[in-house]
């Protein structure tokens, strides 16, 4: 691992981010990454965060047109309420703050506590839960569906709405709509190694893969013998479409888990597009790359998000962050 010691991985990364991105305010001590121009008068501010190890999510999505602030926790550990409260206070212009929370027990509990504390400080806070992962059944017998790739769609599209000056209520509704319109499925070809553990979190021999993984190095729902890119695309797209019945074009995110080369991801995208065409699902936009990662895990996930004209317009709107940038 390219690190000093496990204990300083997150602060080391924040120092490095500060050096690379003078357009951001990086508060290394308090672990908050902020838009340099925050608070932006009259505009709703989006705050997200979660465990580190998913980069560019979330810190790489701070900037005009997307997040106002991100709170990085320890690796795979949700941040603490203090970070979120500090972020909210720093970015709130009076127009309110939207917390974007991936559905994990830790993230939910910490953001809930932070929302209470921030409201005590007079900040108007709304929350949106992202829970797009179809590999987990949303039942009484689980912690509910996990938040994974759809987080990028929620942050980008709600971020564009906020940038336009839409109200907190409206931005929250849009974020909720994006989440409800999006589903994901992920596959691992290798485990990942956390700095704290220093070795792979589980044992996955070459020649086997895990279907239905999350983004925290957990094994998936099922282990199988290696499949081709085409077979994996069929499995993933079918799993998503079982839960999502798009009646309009979709945004497609073909996302690498961290260690899968872009060459392979693009090849995988070709198969994803083939399956979508076979299933009669029109694709409005496609994004291919390592966006919502799980350290050095090999593998990929597919997220589809059904969009109407309004969501597509907001998707296409300018964005300027370290990890996603277009139109400005």
């Amino acid at each position, binding site marked *: 691992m390219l690190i000093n010691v*496990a204990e300083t991985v997150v602060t080391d990364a924040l120092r490095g981010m500060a050096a690379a991105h003078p357009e951001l305010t990086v508060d290394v001590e308090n672990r908050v990454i902020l838009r340099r121009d925050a608070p932006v008068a009259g505009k709703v501010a989006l705050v997200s965060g979660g*465990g580190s190890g998913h980069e560019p999510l979330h810190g790489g999505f701070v900037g005009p047109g997307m997040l106002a602030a991100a709170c990085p*926790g*320890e*690796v*795979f*550990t*949700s*941040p*603490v*309420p*203090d970070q979120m409260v500090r972020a909210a206070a720093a970015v709130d212009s009076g127009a309110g703050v939207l917390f974007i929370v991936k559905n*994990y*027990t*830790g993230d939910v*509990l*910490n953001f809930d*506590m932070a929302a209470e504390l921030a409201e005590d400080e007079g900040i108007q806070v709304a929350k949106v839960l992202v829970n797009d992962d179809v*590999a*987990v059944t949303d039942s*009484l*017998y*689980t*912690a509910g569906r*996990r938040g994974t790739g759809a987080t990028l769609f929620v942050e980008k599209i709600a971020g564009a709405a906020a940038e336009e000056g839409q109200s907190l209520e409206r931005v929250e509704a849009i974020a909720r709509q994006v989440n409800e319109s999006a589903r994901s499925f992920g596959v691992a070809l290798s485990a990942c190694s*956390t700095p*704290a*553990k220093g070795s792979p*979190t*589980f044992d996955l021999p070459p020649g086997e893969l895990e279907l239905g993984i*999350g983004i*925290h*190095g*957990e*094994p998936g*729902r099922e282990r199988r013998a290696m499949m081709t890119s085409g077979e994996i695309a069929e499995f993933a797209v079918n799993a998503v479409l079982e839960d999502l019945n798009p009646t309009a074009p979709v945004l497609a995110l073909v996302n690498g888990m961290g260690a899968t080369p872009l060459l392979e991801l693009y090849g995988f995208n070709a198969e994803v597009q083939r399956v979508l065409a076979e299933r009669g699902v029109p694709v409005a936009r496609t994004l291919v790359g390592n966006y919502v990662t799980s350290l050095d895990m090999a593998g990929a996930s597919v997220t589809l998000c059904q969009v109407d004209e309004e969501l597509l317009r907001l998707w296409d709107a300018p964005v300027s962050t370290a990890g996603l940038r277009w139109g400005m």
Partner: protein
Amino acid sequence: MLDADFFRRWMTATAVAVDGAAARLTELDSPIGDADHGSNLQRGFTAVRTVLDKEAPGTPGAVLTLAGRQLISTVGGASGPLYGTLLRRTGKALGDAAEVSGAELATALRVGVDAVAALGGAAPGDKTMLDALVPAVDALDGGDFAAASSAAEHGAEATTPLQARKGRASYLGERSIGHQDPGATSSALLFAALAETAEATS
């Protein structure tokens, strides 16, 4: 009767136990979790020791409330708010008495454990820390710390055959069976530290 110093020593003993068990807790959190439980609690209880040394709260309630707040501010993850709430709510239930009895602590811990159940929405049998915490407070019964410790220990071990219904391990469905829950394991450490502190005091 148990004074603020007893509670401070309890927290210190827990921190020491967590330090010693951190690698094991992270190891347990690997096959059914995300391999961070040991480092999470280690970070948290190290901070608890520091803040207790610095602020030296004068009552049992204040010790636990401060420890709980510190856990919330430094741990993150699921276990930060849950353990933080456990200690904070237990501490609040103890009020501002300078000394408390074992029975009072038992009652207060019941309040704390109930708060954990309410916050996390889990029940015994879901393969979480509650599988150690609930039998422990049940066994505590007016102050039998040794019994509480061994009940917690047994509760933790008994999570192995369970299928998880809360927390990260629940994502694995049936594959969560056959692994001991890391949070239940650390809860057993908390009660072992309590018993050890009581032992050393008596």
